[in-house]
């Protein structure tokens, strides 16, 4: 999927072109649904988030160009933010990712990191993630993919809250330094 082509579709959406919007949906909805599903782990909520997000994408397509990001980044931001908002709902109980899934993340060669290393768009980020300490990498990736809070991470990793917070903070700092080079 070419960023330029998606940007063009967004520009056409900003002008009210419904055919371009349908095309945009066809090209991006599976990825965005995957993102919402991973965070929410419930199909009905993920469907709700996808629906609201695309309505917002359509309504705010004209504002897209103001943000200096790739079209996909802009759309993912909308979906992630809606999904994280839903996680705030009072009295919400979501089954956390099961232990085996989390354990798989502890091995730097397994799963998502491996996939990132093979992707063109994410290779630089993957190399920088690889350079982090295992604890930093694991907490950042769990927080990102599953929308876990500091407290949930601490509980899952059986570590004090302060420790997890500092893993994330230092990990993010190192990521930035690594990506700047």
């Amino acid at each position: 999927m070419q960023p330029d082509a998606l940007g063009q579709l967004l520009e056409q959406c900003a002008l009210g072109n419904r055919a371009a919007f349908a095309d945009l949906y066809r090209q991006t909805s599976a990825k965005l649904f995957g993102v919402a599903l991973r965070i929410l782990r419930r199909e009905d909520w993920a469907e709700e988030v996808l629906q609201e997000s695309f309505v917002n994408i359509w309504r705010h397509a004209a504002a897209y160009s103001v943000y200096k990001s790739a079209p996909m980044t802009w759309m993912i931001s909308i979906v992630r933010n809606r999904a994280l908002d839903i996680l705030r709902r009072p009295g919400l109980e979501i089954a956390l990712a099961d232990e085996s899934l989390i354990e798989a993340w502890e091995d730097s060669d397994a799963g998502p990191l491996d996939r990132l290393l093979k992707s063109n768009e994410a290779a630089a980020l993957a190399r920088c993630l690889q350079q982090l300490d295992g604890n930093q990498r694991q907490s950042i990736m769990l927080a990102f993919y599953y929308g876990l809070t500091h407290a949930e991470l601490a509980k899952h990793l059986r570590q004090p809250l302060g420790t997890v917070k500092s893993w994330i903070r230092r990990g993010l700092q190192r990521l930035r330094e690594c990506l700047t080079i």
Partner: protein
Amino acid sequence: MKYANPELRDKLAAEYALGTLRGAARARFRRLMKYDPALRRTVTEWENRIYPMTEATAEVEPPARVWNAIQASLAGTAQQIVLGFWRTLGLFSSGLALALLLYLGLAQRPETLSYMALLNDQKSQQPVLMVSTVRNSPKLMIKVLAPQTIAADKVLELWALPAEQDKPPKSLGLFAASGVTTLQFSQAADQQLGNIPALAVSLEPKGGSPTGLPTGPVLYVGKWLKM
């Protein structure tokens, strides 16, 4: 206010992008961002850094009912909101002076400009639009020289007139009634439009011509000139 501390701003922006900034703090941060473009940019920078992680997320085809629900909730959304936004960008004032400036600006590097058309309003005969291509670029740029007011349920559509009389015009796309719109082609735009004698703009229902041919009045016309 402690949000003035650059380190804290960066830390909160990073955690907002990562998703670990939550609850009331997330809502407060989002409100701040609305009125603080620099903070919004810092968040965008973090999103650009870490969102590539999404490459590892599996794609899942959503059920058809999601698209149906989106279409239902969009039925009747107002085009004027969209066009209103473009107007507020207010990049261009109006008139010939600007057209001249643009032309001079472009004339400084004439080797890059390959085709250009100045489209005149059919009634006033004043130039309204400048459409141009750059050599070997897939982009077609449309600059509105004098912002146009169009009905809320209408949209402007650009057409390439056919080289032969008996062929239909070809739609190039929709564009904003003010500011700049860039249309992207799959190959170099100047090559695809090499044989076009003129460009025209018609007024169409929102969403563009339903038939693939101009249905509304032709508002602006201009010759497509090789530079």
